[in-house]
């Protein structure tokens, strides 16, 4: 028999409802930035598959899991650090911390536990060099990019892009224990892909970034300079995309496809540059942003499929 007084129970229930709301499982999942994580897993898988060494499937799965969790940890720590910025931008205002569904401290400890767990597991089960690279990637994304570069320089995503470029190299290192020129090429492709990709988005979300005080290139140097830089980076990216075939690390299928895709990327970048202001310019930036994702996905998908096709 309950001796609890109904009015006391009701009062406590109201007080609990007024306090911090309990987060759902999906809020913690959202902290991991699942869409970024999926790209990281995909590019790391390509690094693993193209590496000239066999890794037991269970260990390969473990390596990918560790890389995915490490990337997720970076996302959680980035959301913890950037909660104030996220609250001021429409694109990110509904993330778990600014929306009040998860306390900042929870996100911090969640990220730290996942980061140390993933690095430890990768080191113990797969290899110390791969684990060291994963640890450096997490450090680079959280400390160098999020804490230092993002609010300080319009070159934030240029240098910070290295964090997103490391996963295929980690995959490669997990299989071989070393960093080959081939994995360096994969790194460089993502590194030079990042600026045109993010600046196309920044052209569309310039006001958001300005409101949040993030010195993205269009905010600091204007749309014209951003478009010029997009073209410059695309001019480096297009031949770099073909380089794995030129160096003999990828086959003819990849060579032809990467040349065509690179050409299309360049056309899209020139289109952004040519359009100037207005609705057509917005549409061109949106097209480039969308195509940049397809471009990277297709390059890596072909690299992944080529050994299977033969």
């Amino acid at each position, binding site marked *: 028999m309950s*001796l*609890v*007084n109904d009015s*006391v*129970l009701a009062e*406590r*229930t109201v*007080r*609990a*409802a007024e*306090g911090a*709301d*309990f*987060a*759902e*499982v999906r809020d*913690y999942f959202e902290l991991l930035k699942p869409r970024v994580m999926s790209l990281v897993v995909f590019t790391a898988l390509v690094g693993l598959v193209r590496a000239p060494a066999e890794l*037991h499937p*269970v*260990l390969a799965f*473990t390596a990918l*899991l560790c890389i995915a969790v490490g990337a997720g940890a970076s996302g959680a720590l980035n959301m913890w650090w950037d909660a104030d910025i996220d609250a001021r931008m429409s694109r990110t205002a509904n993330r778990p911390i600014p929306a009040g569904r998860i306390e900042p401290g929870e996100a911090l400890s969640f990220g730290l536990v996942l980061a140390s767990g993933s690095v430890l597991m990768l080191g113990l*089960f797969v290899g110390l060099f791969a684990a060291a690279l994963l640890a450096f990637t997490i450090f680079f994304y959280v400390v160098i990019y999020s804490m230092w570069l993002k609010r300080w320089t319009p070159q934030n995503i240029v240098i910070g892009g290295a964090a997103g470029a490391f996963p295929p190299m980690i995959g490669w290192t997990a299989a071989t224990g070393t960093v080959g020129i081939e994995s360096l090429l994969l790194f460089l492709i993502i590194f030079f892909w990042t600026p045109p990709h993010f600046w196309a988005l920044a052209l569309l979300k310039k006001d958001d970034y300005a409101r949040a005080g993030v010195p993205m290139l269009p905010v600091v140097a204007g749309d014209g300079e951003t478009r010029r830089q997009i073209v410059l980076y695309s001019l480096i990216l297009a031949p770099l995309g073909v380089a794995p075939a030129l160096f003999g690390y990828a086959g003819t299928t990849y060579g032809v496809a990467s040349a065509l895709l690179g050409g299309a990327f360049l056309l899209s970048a020139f289109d952004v540059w040519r359009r100037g202001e207005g609705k057509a310019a917005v549409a061109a930036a949106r097209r480039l942003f969308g195509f940049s994702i397809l471009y990277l996905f297709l390059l890596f998908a072909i690299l992944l499929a080529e050994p299977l096709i033969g």
Partner: protein
Amino acid sequence: MNDKPEGIVLTEEQRRRRRARSIAIALVLAGLAILFYVVTIVKIGPQILNRPL
């Protein structure tokens, strides 16, 4: 004797969310235990059968 409940009484929704989180943690732990077991077997390899009886 004081019969009043101590602490905060959770709402039904909060209870549901806590339970979902607990289940998620349990599943992750079970997954890790299985993974650690399988990885150990893989790392030891055929040597696992080569031991004095």
